[in-house]
């Protein structure tokens, strides 16, 4: 089994979801491949970190919605603008090197939480009722879902791998950061992880809802961009 094949299956392997024969092949490859072992360790560390976070409560749509509404009310208004408009405002209005994590992350968490529950509150009209003339299924729904879920899983693997790589980089760099910066970074990251966990729980609960997957990907992207920004800002600090 090649490294690519193994890495494509690592997520399922770590979760114990691979068929026995396939799991044995992956295990044999891991025994002899240090790079793939490192991938597995990174993924396991991330999963452990995510699992150790407080599990997002099963969303009660109305109560949760009210809470999110309240959070949004309290969030700085920058969290409500579009990504592009926010970027431009930061870029042109406030100067590049004067960003601070906490308010932005607070707003982001509120927005992510909103996004994470949005799919639960208002299932969009993408799942249409079957019209009278709907085509008769030839393949089983389960077979189709397996196909779709394999795509979701591959994409998720890529996001998790990027996050794992960035976290590894960050944990190395963090040692040289000032204490207060390190603390605010850790707090902000923890907030983001909790928001991502909420989105992940929503995606798991509604694992056949493509919109829930899209929201989860957005959460991963936000985490990646936060980690990248943190690393680059420290690297780019001109004395």
């Amino acid at each position: 089994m090649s490294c690519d094949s193994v890495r494509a299956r690592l997520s399922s392997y770590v979760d114990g979801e691979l068929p026995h024969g396939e799991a044995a092949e992956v295990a044999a490859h891991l025994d002899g491949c240090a790079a793939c072992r490192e991938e597995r360790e990174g993924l396991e560390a991330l999963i452990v970190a995510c699992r150790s976070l407080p599990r997002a409560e099963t969303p009660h749509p109305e109560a949760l919605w009210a809470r999110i509404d309240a959070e949004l009310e309290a969030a700085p208004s920058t969290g409500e603008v579009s990504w592009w408009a926010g970027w431009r405002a930061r870029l042109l209005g406030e100067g590049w090197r004067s960003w601070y994590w906490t308010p932005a992350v607070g707003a982001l968490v509120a927005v992510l939480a909103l996004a994470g529950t949005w799919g639960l509150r208002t299932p969009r009209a993408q799942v249409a009722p079957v019209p009278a003339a709907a085509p008769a299924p030839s393949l089983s729904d389960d077979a189709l879902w397996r196909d779709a879920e394999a795509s979701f899983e591959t994409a998720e693997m890529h996001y998790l791998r990027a996050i794992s790589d960035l976290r590894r980089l960050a944990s190395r760099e963090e040692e040289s950061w000032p204490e207060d910066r390190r603390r605010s970074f850790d707090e902000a990251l923890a907030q983001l992880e909790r928001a991502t966990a909420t989105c992940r729980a929503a995606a798991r609960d509604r694992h056949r809802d493509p919109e829930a997957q899209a929201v989860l990907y957005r959460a991963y992207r936000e985490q990646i961009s936060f980690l990248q920004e943190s690393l680059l800002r420290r690297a780019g600090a001109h004395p």
Partner: protein
Amino acid sequence: MRMPTPIGASLLCLCGVCVLAGLARADDLEGDVVYLPMPAGETLTVDNRLGTLRLRGWDEPQVRIVATKRAREAGMLDRLKVRVDLQGGKLAITAGVYFSDGWRPVPLAGAGIDLTIDAPRAMAVRASTFHGFIDAAGFQAGAHLESQQGEIRAADIRGPVDTRSLEGRQLLQGIHGPLDANGIEGDLDLESIDGETLGATVFKGQITAREVRSPVVRLRTTVGSIIFVGALMRGGHYDLDTIDGDVRLVLRPTPFRLLARAPMGKVTSGFALVKVRRTSAGTGTAGADEAAGAGQVEGAFQGGGALLELVSAKGSISLTAGR
């Protein structure tokens, strides 16, 4: 076995062309080629998680949608549908598949729909794919392009453009508006960009920017090099940062002020900089060949003009004169 949809020229002539005039809400398209009158089109939203997407701005007051289905099993073809939702000037096109309990836009490896859409240039575009590429050109009201694992290509677009991809190259040319390009893995190639701002960020991949005429430029990679080729705008601000990669500039000689930092590599400049300061060698003045060394270089060429802030945390930085 892959079963192509019957989209031959003869079929197109006989039955494949439909004109939908009274479309008011979500409907499934029937036919491989569909025309929608769109005299005052505002926005075009396309979500094709089932295949590739080619978008072209044209001068006709209508939208043409060409759908090409493919499936390993013939029975699947009927289950693949393109849904169109028209609300005033807002057109949404979504590709999906029928399950026994309804229609859903999901990515499939075993079946798909490739879309080619021509639409009025004035429509603002918002498009996404999952595995397939997006190729958009000729629009005048901006574009938001997003793909999980497909390549993104955009050319000749006016207005704000932003892109997102998880995995895949991005090739953006002739963007006449603010550009914000984001990728996680994959190279970013930018050429002939002249909006007021250019921002490009990638986690793993090389950023290459040629002939950029934006006064505010920010290019950042975590793992990968940054290459900038062309001229600097007088008064422009260029911020090029990488952690694990080199920063290389090939510049036509124009005045600039330089702040370059490469703590683990070296900074070399083919330009005669004045007031060069190096952390390793103190402060002084250096000629073209002398402005090389580890650490930090600060200086000005021809009295300064554009501001260049360059960082490579683990690689090197070089500036060379080009034509």
